[in-house]
């Protein structure tokens, strides 16, 4: 008998993943608890001082299907370091993980470094990008998307961007404003709806 069979028998007949449920409106005091004086697991500061790479700032808002600003969302990002590596132990001050609350006052932002390119399926190269999870009241299963960067020469050959219908690709590309800040708004529904992935 395989260990897998043993494990499944031990777990009972109704084995399967635990379904997702909404984060609800009241998560902040636990997950993004700065205003409550609670300990933060992670913040919008993904890269500390001295971390190798070009420092970038990303700012955005989350909008619902009426174009109203969503004030109770949590955004998480996951990314490679400047050399395209994940979970590198030798890169002090860089976890690759960020968590931010989207608020009525300022939307959300992240301070990080521009990630390197990483390999993709079938010998392709993926352009620099951040993996994004969006959680909010009214979202029963986290929404997965990606942030790419305007002007990256690798975008044209990126194998994931290529899967997105051409007219929706722009929704995944952060645009640099006059202050050098990358703007990335997340539109949950309707006009300009962000391309979300089934991961």
């Amino acid at each position, binding site marked *: *008998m*395989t*260990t*897998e069979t043993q494990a*499944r028998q031990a*777990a009972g007949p*109704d*084995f*399967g*993943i*635990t*379904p*997702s*449920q*909404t*984060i609800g*409106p*009241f*998560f*902040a*005091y*636990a*997950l993004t608890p700065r205003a*409550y004086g*609670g300990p933060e*697991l*992670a913040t919008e500061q993904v890269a500390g001082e001295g971390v190798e790479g070009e420092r970038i700032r990303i700012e955005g808002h989350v909008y619902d*299907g009426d174009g109203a600003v969503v004030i*109770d969302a949590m955004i998480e990002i*996951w*990314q*490679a370091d400047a050399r395209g590596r*994940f*979970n590198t132990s030798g890169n002090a001050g860089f*976890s690759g*993980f960020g968590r931010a609350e989207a608020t009525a006052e300022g939307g959300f932002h992240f301070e990080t470094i521009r990630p390197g390119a*990483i*390999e993709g*399926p079938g010998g392709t190269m*993926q352009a620099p990008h951040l*993996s994004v*999870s969006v*959680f909010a*009241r*009214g979202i*029963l*299963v986290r929404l*997965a998307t990606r942030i790419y960067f305007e002007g990256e020469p690798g975008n044209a050959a990126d*194998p*994931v961007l290529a*899967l997105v219908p051409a007219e*929706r690709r722009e929704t995944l590309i952060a645009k640099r404003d006059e202050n050098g800040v990358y703007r990335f708004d997340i539109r*949950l*529904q309707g006009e300009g709806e*962000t*391309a*979300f*992935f*089934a*991961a």
Partner: protein
Amino acid sequence: MSLIYPRDSLKAHPLNATPAYGSTVKRAPSKPLILLPHTLSETTGPVFGHTGVAAGDSDLTRQHQGEPLGERIIVSGRVLDEDGRPVPHTLVEIWQANAGGRYVHVRDQHPAPLDPNFTGAGRALTDAEGRYRFVTIKPGAYPWRNHHNAWRPAHIHFSLFGPSFLSRVITQMYFPGDPLFKYDPIFQSVTDERARERLISRFDLGTTEPEWALGYTFDIVLRGRNATPVEEPHDH
């Protein structure tokens, strides 16, 4: 160990477009999701060591000067992958209402009292066998404005990472036999009955501590399956 993430498993999840839960109506994407290949970006994820968890974070009854009001409970269980293997040293975050059904959150308007001895936020790392354990109080049911006379069944919110971006999940744990289940569109958003039952903890006399606290067991199964199951030798 290298993991694969069968997409079929995702069928356990609710649809984001679940109109009975009113907040989804303007927040669920209207366009089809795009199938994302599982590249390095997806098969890796953050690792939280003990730096993310302080001693005492898993006992929600001892975060203030006094003890919170309510029914003291122990919520414990295992975090497993889809093969039933433990997910060791993974982060579990929880949050919940107090015994009166009130959250500490500034926007919670439910006219039930706050408890100065209860915040309702906790964290734990699973051990080498995937086990976690929290001491807390049983949260109260609370009203919400989804529809006339709408009440949420008592629940504890759970947030887990597991080994990668793909195993990340936020869910809610319920208590057995709650009469509000059939009226709750969030619980009912999980349309598969067996999947829905996986959201319900089990009363457990084995983890109940005499003269102290009732025990509830809640095992959580995250996405991820061994890419290369190993055949064990037969002994005959």
